[in-house]
């Protein structure tokens, strides 16, 4: 597949301080994910943690946006098609200044703007409501197409899960977008190699990954996309891939980001059963220690069931 690009030379020069800042933002996204899910005793963990570095790079480096003017017409669009990882997006948005970080503790609660799955009618700054898998890519395609038709210099970014790529709608969009030559549309696949439960097999915990190695890159390339494979936890590689994604050649771009489900928490990494599950207190303490926040571990006893959150 000649279309699949494996970056060798960096496309962007980023200084070490900037990389350190983005890595710190990714760490803080993970901390807030763990804190909020523990507090809500609900929500997903594995997917939000695998997506954290990519979201940090988007919200603190790549996207043209104005947190104090969320409806700014010329902002870049971002759609979290894998809507069940909402808490990671909320954490990135809070840290970026869309709303107070303390509000993250309302996640998943009644009347919260931070619904279990993203609801654009409740939270300014969300570009689409998502959660039913496979849909976000179509909406993002409409944004990219609409931007071109309306003469706006806007790029539409959309993050899909690799399990989500089992949805037929994803491939409807994959087939349609190249027909409209939407090189302002960028798909990021959070390729963490696990889905909620998965097929039985010889993989980790007796389940096999959603795709065989190389399958996703080959499929997107075969559908007419420019494909870039990258390590979704290597911040320099992420920035490099983002820069290359903007070198428009008439084709939409698919970034296949290899990630680890549950990244950053030792006992979660690579285990499907941490897709979504409440913490035991000792598990929460270990998670916070793993993420470099030992002092938060003791303070974070879960909210009692039925408590206002």
């Amino acid at each position, binding site marked *: 597949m000649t279309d699949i690009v494996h970056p060798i030379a960096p496309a962007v020069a980023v200084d070490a301080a900037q990389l350190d800042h983005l890595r710190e933002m990714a760490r803080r996204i993970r901390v807030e994910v763990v804190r909020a899910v523990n507090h809500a005793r609900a929500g997903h963990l594995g997917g939000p943690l695998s997506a954290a570095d990519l979201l940090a790079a988007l919200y603190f480096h790549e996207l043209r946006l104005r947190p104090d003017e969320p409806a700014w*017409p010329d902002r870049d*669009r971002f759609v979290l098609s894998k809507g069940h990882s909402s808490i990671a997006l909320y954490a990135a948005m809070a840290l970026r200044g869309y709303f107070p970080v303390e509000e993250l503790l309302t996640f998943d609660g009644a009347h919260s703007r931070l619904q279990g799955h993203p*609801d*654009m*009618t409740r939270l300014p700054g969300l*570009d*689409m*409501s*998502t*959660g*039913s898998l*496979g*849909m976000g*890519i*179509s*909406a*993002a*395609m*409409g*944004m*990219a*197409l*609409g*931007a071109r*038709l*309306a003469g*706006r210099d*806007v790029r*539409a970014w959309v993050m899909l899960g690799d399990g989500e790529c089992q949805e*037929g*709608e994803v491939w*409807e*969009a994959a*087939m*349609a977008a190249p*027909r*409209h030559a939407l090189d302002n549309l960028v798909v990021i696949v959070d390729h963490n190699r696990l889905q909620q439960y998965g097929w039985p097999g010889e993989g980790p915990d007796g389940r096999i990954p959603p795709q065989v190695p190389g399958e996703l890159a080959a499929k997107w390339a075969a559908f007419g996309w420019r494909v870039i494979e990258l390590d979704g936890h290597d911040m320099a590689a992420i920035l490099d891939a983002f820069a290359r994604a903007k070198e428009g050649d008439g084709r939409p771009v698919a970034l296949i980001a290899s990630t680890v489900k549950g990244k950053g928490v030792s006992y979660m990494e690579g285990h499907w059963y941490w897709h979504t599950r409440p913490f035991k207190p000792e598990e929460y303490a270990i998670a916070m220690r793993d993420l470099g926040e030992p002092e938060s571990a003791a303070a974070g006893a879960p909210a009692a069931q039925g408590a206002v959150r």
Partner: protein
Amino acid sequence: MTLVMGRPQREIFGETVAALADTDPRIYVLDGDVGSSTRADIVEKAHPDRYLQMGIAEQNMLGVAAGMATMGLIPFISTFVSFAVVRPLDQVRVLIAQTGANVKITPSYGGLFTGQTGMSHIIVDDYAIMRAMPGMVTVSPADDVEAAGALRWAAAYEGPCYIRLGRDAQLRVFDDTHAFAFGRAEVVREGTDVTLITTGGQTGRTVEAAALLAADGISAHVLHVATLKPLDVEAIVAAAERTGRVITVEEGTVIGGLGGAVAEALGEHRPTRVNRIGLQDCFVQSGPNDALLDIYGLSSSRVAEQVREILASS
């Protein structure tokens, strides 16, 4: 009394959207590869840059429309009712209805007249499905004149709406001076013995049925409900009070459709006996239009016959 045939609503769709696009740069038509059937090709010929082929992929098409709407554009959907309502139902629900996207779901081939296609293409539960969906306006114009008015109204309305259009000509109910009145039901014939409440392409045949009933000495009051949601409860209550006896007539399933809507409204506001003429929990076979109307009891004469039977047995 027999009504004359109007023009096919699908042609009105193409012509009206093309005319709207003349003056409004936000208007586009998204086609699920049936533009030569739904007459989106009229838009394409008038404005090649406003016609967007989306291929045979309706779930994606409805999602793309939602995304375009967030960019300030106004997409009109071109496909068949079956592929705009049931196939992409989840996309319509999550991306369009929930977000309040300014998308115009305007498929044709609604009701029984689909060019002899059969059960896969003939969907009769669209009224029930769309009016049950939170935030979704549901409209079913009677004829070509009202279809044009409804489409022009939809372009100006800010938000999602569903307009059922037909493939073939419908009986002409309104003259050229008629203005589509969103949210208002209209009395199309005055009467005193029984109230017939009807919608969409069935309205013309219901009016003809009322004329047949008049010859038998039965005076039927006919109320046309073009907007199924929001429902004109006041007009329905008034029409029920007029005769004290209500029969609904629709080219759709009576479960949750117009019959369901009227029964709900009257049950709550003015308990009145309601009988429902329409499709009775069945899939529809293919066949010529007249044959289908006869089989499913929706021709003018078959409606009159059922009304007589209902009145005689109660």
